[in-house]
């Protein structure tokens, strides 16, 4: 291959690395993204100059179609739909890897009828396998996040043995493909099997475990690109794929730690669904105190420090903008107003940060769990909006609880806790939240957006 093309790929790889490095600082992150996209442009240009002039038109047409769809969705999507969006893009990356690998296989084994070396065949099969799982897995994740597929954990008998069997089948198929290269039936079956496996591994995982799934699928899409790099003998694919693969794994690890669960237990799934009998027997024996809108407004008015704990419920109720208004009202009264962000709040890593950034909350107001946990004790009001398990003191106190040991926000230590919640429903883990029964806890029932709007209205009048 031409030395200039190699050089261009090298530059692209370096730009990807610099781009990701700049993601370490919020102020430079946007430039980082730009740099990484320039790297991509260079990689694409370096590839386009290698192709025959006659194919150029086909390539450009496809690129324009893809770009148009990508741009349109990227600008149309609501910030609350970001997890679905990331899932879909992931899936497309995986699917592209599948297509490229099969295409390469077909070209060599069926069109040119040449012998493919073992490493390449194995890479092709791996790429199809990982890419296939990434594709259907991401599609199911998208379905769950957008409510088109039941978001709860779906488990059935014999699920894990079935997965194991399918995995073994895939290995056997790969071996057969190595031996009987000319027979394309194996790669076709492998594609189908990997598609089925992708569905099966994601359906048992639901609700609050989604951040783990999304990060893991992100990692898979990188690995798929990486294996495609081995198929095509192309270093830029390997480097970029490895970067993404590693980043996904790290995020997955962070998410698991934040839930005090092992990756294996998340992947086996069924959390919550199997635990219904383990929680408090039947109905709630917790007595809660309700608070009205006016009283809540008075509490805010007389406080000197407020910490908001947002959760997935805030995203569902689209309450981020009205919370910003609440923040403005409080700051007008010189009330110290901050947000405490649990690492797994929401449905993907950093979900809450994006939503609050959308409503113009400065990012230095969003404090990480470890940095704010000691401050709860001298805070007047903790306002929990749509969060549940992440503030359940049972994680600290009750060894019998399924969430025992999970790091939580110490919201219960505050002088007053106000919980905005639609009803007394349980969190994802299916456990009673004993915080709601605490003497310092007040429940503000109703749709978060509506009730907070009323609270802000009261504050504006007073």
């Amino acid at each position, binding site marked *: 291959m031409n030395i200039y093309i190699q050089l261009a790929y090298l530059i692209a790889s370096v730009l*990807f*690395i610099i*781009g990701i490095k700049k*993601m*370490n600082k*919020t102020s430079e*992150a946007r430039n980082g*993204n730009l740099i990484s996209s320039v790297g*991509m442009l260079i*990689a*694409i240009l370096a590839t*386009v100059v*290698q*192709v*025959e002039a006659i*194919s150029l038109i*086909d*390539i450009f047409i*496809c690129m324009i*179609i*893809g*770009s148009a769809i*990508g741009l349109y*969705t*990227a*600008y149309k999507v609501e910030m609350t739909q*970001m997890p679905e969006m990331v899932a879909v*893009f*992931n899936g*497309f990356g995986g*699917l*592209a*890897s599948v*297509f*490229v690998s099969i*295409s*390469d296989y077909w070209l060599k084994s*069926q069109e040119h009828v040449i012998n493919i070396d073992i490493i390449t065949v194995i890479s092709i099969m791996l790429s199809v396998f990982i890419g296939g799982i990434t594709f259907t897995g991401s599609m199911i994740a998208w379905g769950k996040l957008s409510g088109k597929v039941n978001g709860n954990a779906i488990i059935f008998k014999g699920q894990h043995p079935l997965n194991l069997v399918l995995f073994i089948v895939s290995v056997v198929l790969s071996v057969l493909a190595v031996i009987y290269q000319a027979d394309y039936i194996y790669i076709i079956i492998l594609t189908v099997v990997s598609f089925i496996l992708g569905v099966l591994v994601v359906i048992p995982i639901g609700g609050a475990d989604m951040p783990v799934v999304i990060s893991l699928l992100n990692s898979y899409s*990188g690995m798929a*690109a*990486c294996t*495609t790099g081995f*198929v*095509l003998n192309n*270093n*830029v*694919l*390997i480097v*970029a794929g490895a970067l*993404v*693969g*590693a980043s996904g794994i*790290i*995020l997955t690890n962070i998410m698991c730690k934040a839930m005090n669960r092992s990756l294996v237990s998340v992947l086996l799934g069924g959390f919550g669904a199997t635990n219904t009998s383990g929680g408090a027997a039947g109905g709630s024996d917790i007595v809660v105190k309700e608070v009205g809108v006016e009283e809540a407004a008075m509490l805010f008015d007389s406080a000197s420090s407020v910490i908001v704990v947002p959760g997935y419920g805030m995203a569902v109720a689209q309450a981020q903008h009205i919370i910003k208004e609440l923040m403005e009202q409080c700051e007008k009264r010189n009330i110290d107003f901050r947000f405490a962000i649990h690492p797994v709040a929401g449905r*993907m890593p*950093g979900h809450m940060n994006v939503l609050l*950034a959308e409503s113009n909350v*400065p*990012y230095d107001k969003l404090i*990480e769990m470890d940095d704010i946990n000691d401050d709860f004790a001298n805070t007047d009001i903790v306002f929990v909006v749509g969060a549940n398990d992440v503030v359940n003191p049972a994680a600290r106190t009750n060894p019998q609880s399924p969430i025992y040991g999970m790091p939580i926000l110490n919201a219960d230590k505050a002088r007053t806790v106000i919980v905005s919640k639609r009803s007394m429903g349980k969190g994802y883990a299916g456990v009673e939240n004993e915080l709601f029964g605490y003497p310092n806890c007040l429940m503000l029932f109703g749709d978060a957006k509506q009730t907070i709007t009323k609270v802000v209205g009261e504050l504006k009048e007073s």
Partner: protein
Amino acid sequence: MLYVLVLGSYLGFELINKVPPTLHTPLMSGSNAISGITIVGAILATNELGYTTLSKWLGMLAVIFAMINVVGGYAVTDRMLKMFKKK
């Protein structure tokens, strides 16, 4: 090539460990866009003459999907990062 893989992964681990939680979503969608690098493979696969071959058609489909991944990924990341403001 294995060499490249190991170094690349190591670099990835080193770099991402330092990313603050605030940026986890943009990091994910940004790295997602990078995984669209498969576009390079897709373009090469499309570089086959004649529309009669499966290779060509799969390559063209791959170009479309990879391009959605790349352009959509970068665009949405930029849109998000634009919103992150300090006071």
